[in-house]
């Protein structure tokens, strides 16, 4: 499947999507319209970086430094993970060139 996000794009959680603790099960979840998704540590780490300011490339670079992992590999992982969530409309993307939602 083609990726739905480019390196310079800025991913963000739109209104109605919440990154939260599930206090009863002791897990992290992503809640969205009529969906709740359990997150593993990697998914949680990626989504916790989404601030609506930084591009995917900047986030990948930060995570690569923090986890001392190759940046190419981290970028690929983030792109795949976010593409899956963009398909489900749980992550939106804005392009830095036009100040609009493109996803």
């Amino acid at each position: 499947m083609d990726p739905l996000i480019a390196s310079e794009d800025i991913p963000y959680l739109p209104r109605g999507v919440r990154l939260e603790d599930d206090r009863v099960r002791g897990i992290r979840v992503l809640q969205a319209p009529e969906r709740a998704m359990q997150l593993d540590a990697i998914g949680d780490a990626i989504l916790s970086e989404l601030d609506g300011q930084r591009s995917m490339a900047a986030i990948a670079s930060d995570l690569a430094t923090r986890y001392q992992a190759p940046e190419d590999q981290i970028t690929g992982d983030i792109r795949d993970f976010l593409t899956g969530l963009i398909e489900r409309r749980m992550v939106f993307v804005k392009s830095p060139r036009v100040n609009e939602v493109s996803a």
Partner: protein
Amino acid sequence: MKDLPAQPRDLDGNPVTPGLPMAMLAEITHRCPLACPYCSNPVELTRSQAELPAEDWARVFREAADLGVLQVHISGGEPGARRDLAQIVESASAAGLYVNLITSGIGITRQRLEELDRKGVDHVQLSLQGIRPDMADRISGHPGSWDKKMGFAGWVTEIGFPLTINAVVHRQNMERLPDMIELAETLGARRIEVATVQFHGWADLNRKALMPTREQAVFARQVVNEARIRLRGRMVIDYVPADHHAVYPKACMGGWGSTGLNVAPDGSVLPCHAAGSIGWMRFENIRDRSLSDIWHLSEAFNAFRGTDWMAEPCRSCERKNMDFGGCRCQAMAIAGDARATDPVCSKSPLHAQVIARAEEDAGADMAELIYRRMKKGG
């Protein structure tokens, strides 16, 4: 009042292990300005005097959150028919739940919708009965419904709520499915749920007018598949197919008593919204017991948990942990036995009969509808 059993056991007395619920359907009223002939409410509707007060709903929401529920779907009837809807929403949000508002869009003004925004509605699901005034108003039995719905959809997106369009499809509107998907896109919906009428309760009374043909079921599947590719990343399409034309049954509720629960307007707690059609089943009420006790120990929730209760052909079927034998209410309605294999399954001895009846109903030259209405008086 009878005590609950001390241990969770299925209807044969086999021990079962309840999990934790994720989602709760809160049907806060059966009152509704619409009269859709496939309404999922029971044929015996609850009157306003018997509705659970807002304070009780607040307690239910707190107990639900403590039990593991993440999302509440506030529905009806039309939830806007309750004047205290904002108070109910506020208490659900305060309990930490993700709040879905499931509405017809009729009877909620822009001012009220703005208040619901402040009180914590996270997402709005709006039902559509057709893609033009004639069909929408005829199916809903409510003249003017179309215009009101389009106005409401505009407010939803102006305020900024994420929007899901719920489109129920049947023989009389299935040809227009491509237009419904296009309309949802135009309205700025993130999701559309395309749900083929499930023939329980009111819909079952209207089988001859609503049963889709096999060709329509094939067409709808094709439309959905193509639209999913075209709209990838722009709009999600969830699809509930016509199960009378399927090979295997749907995994109803993801397994009985496994992830969801339904609180009816009078406070009774059901494993699914149609479970009241299983005549012998007793349901506990939230006015008498805690939600946790009802979830873990009530006979209704434990009756069909696990797989030990199953008879053949389910018992030895390799799909028994995938579809859980299908829908218990459909088994009750068609086989007369709630523990039977869902008769829409190709392995059911009743399957040929189900297909023959569906084909006969689909071919009926009949468009007249029996509308959902409360009985007069009371």
